[in-house]
């Protein structure tokens, strides 16, 4: 049976992890490779690295970091953040990334999804969609969601569900769905939002934003219909340990990868 996936997300700036990672058993908590290796050993199913490097000059450090990650990590990993061209994607895949997450670039020019899917295959094209509820209702009385870009700062006017369907039609292999309303709240994932997306598109949905307790993961996999769940700080700050989480989920009937 296909397992639901647990995906820790690491924010990387100038080649180092940020968000105040707090691990006592690492020599260098800022080293993305060391932290990634720890998560992989603990049973993370995939890893995501988001480059939040501010300056263009330092972006090369991300590519060399991706090479170092690929040397060490024996599970799939996605990289994203600030990708601006097909050439950027090619360089990151050559460096050993398994998947590329694109966001603003795809909103700006949706045809880039077709190009990437054709050039590199749908399996490596993750369309990241950051949404906020726009507090309007559609004809069925369902809440609407709007797509935001630039780290959730800039509204686009795009209706999120139709954007997800378009991304799928153009060849995206997966949707990384972040609810900006839930992100950072630790009050739980956006269950209703994720369920609507999961029912509507046929490609896998990674739910992101709001994880604060183990029950939230059970809920997003069952009621939310998510295929994978992504979280950052709860893992970085030891609030939830991956092995403990996976045992908890298995006990609650969620198909999960556990090696005995």
């Amino acid at each position, binding site marked *: *049976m*296909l*397992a*639901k*996936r647990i995906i820790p997300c690491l924010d990387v700036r100038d080649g180092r992890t940020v968000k105040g990672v707090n691990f006592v058993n690492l020599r260098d908590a800022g080293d993305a490779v060391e932290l990634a290796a720890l998560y*992989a050993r603990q049973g993370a*199913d995939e890893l995501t690295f988001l480059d939040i490097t501010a300056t263009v000059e330092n972006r090369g450090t991300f590519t060399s970091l991706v090479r170092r990650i*690929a*040397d*060490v990590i*024996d*599970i*799939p990993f996605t990289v994203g953040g600030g990708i601006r061209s097909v050439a950027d994607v090619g360089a990151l*895949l*050559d*460096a*050993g990334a*398994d998947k590329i997450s694109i966001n603003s670039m795809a909103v700006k020019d949706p045809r880039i999804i077709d190009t990437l899917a*054709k050039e*590199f*295959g*749908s*399996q*490596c094209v993750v369309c990241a969609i950051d949404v906020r509820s726009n507090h309007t209702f559609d004809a069925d009385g369902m809440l609407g969601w709007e797509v935001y870009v630039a780290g959730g700062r800039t509204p686009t006017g795009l209706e999120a569900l139709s954007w997800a369907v378009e991304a799928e039609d153009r060849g995206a*292999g*997966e949707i990384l769905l972040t609810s900006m309303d839930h992100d950072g709240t630790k009050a739980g994932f956006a269950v209703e939002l994720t369920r609507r997306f999961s029912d509507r598109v*046929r*490609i*896998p949905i990674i739910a992101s934003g709001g994880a604060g307790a183990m029950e939230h993961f059970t809920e997003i996999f069952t009621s939310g219909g998510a*295929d*994978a769940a992504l979280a950052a700080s709860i893992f970085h700050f030891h609030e939830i340990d991956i092995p403990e989480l996976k045992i908890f989920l298995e006990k609650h009937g969620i198909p999960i*990868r*556990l*090696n*005995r």
Partner: protein
Amino acid sequence: MSSIVIVKYNAGNIRSVLCALNRLGRDATVSDDPKVLRNASRVIFPGVGEASSAMRYLRQVHLDEVLLSLQQPFLGICLGMQLMCSRSEENDTDCLGIFESQVVRFAEEPGLKIPHMGWNTLGLGDDPLFAGITDPAWCYFVHSYYVPASKETIATCTYGQNTFSAALGAGNYRGVQFHPEKSGPLGERILKNFLEISEDRLW
């Protein structure tokens, strides 16, 4: 030390496989030179992407006949395995014909996500590739097309209503639908088995 050669063509996720071999303390050459391929002790044929463009390229550079005639242990991965089959529904492509099996697309099922992406367990057959592997054998898959179970199947996997070939074997040829290079310690063990297998045990 015997030489491992990774087939160089237009659809390889070559770096991931190279890194996995390096983690096993082994190096590999990446080549499309028929002579280098024929002299290798092991040949690995990775693949991601689309079948018809990959086959078109392999035919253009005459690698199709070379791959078909190799005698040493040969391992196709993901699209590599599918290209080793006789035919693929992906853009109606005639493939290498190393395996008699055919490749078909996952049928639509309510609630079934396509591609089949993520970790799933193997139903293990008796093959030296799986020496020392015990249940639950979790491996990482990403694919929208699959090979139905056939007499060439050496491991199965179930997704939705389909139990399909997670691995195929015939003579010196092996193919795996999952990515051993991305399947943690278990995938590493499968790669190690492939590298260390005694050649006469494969037939």
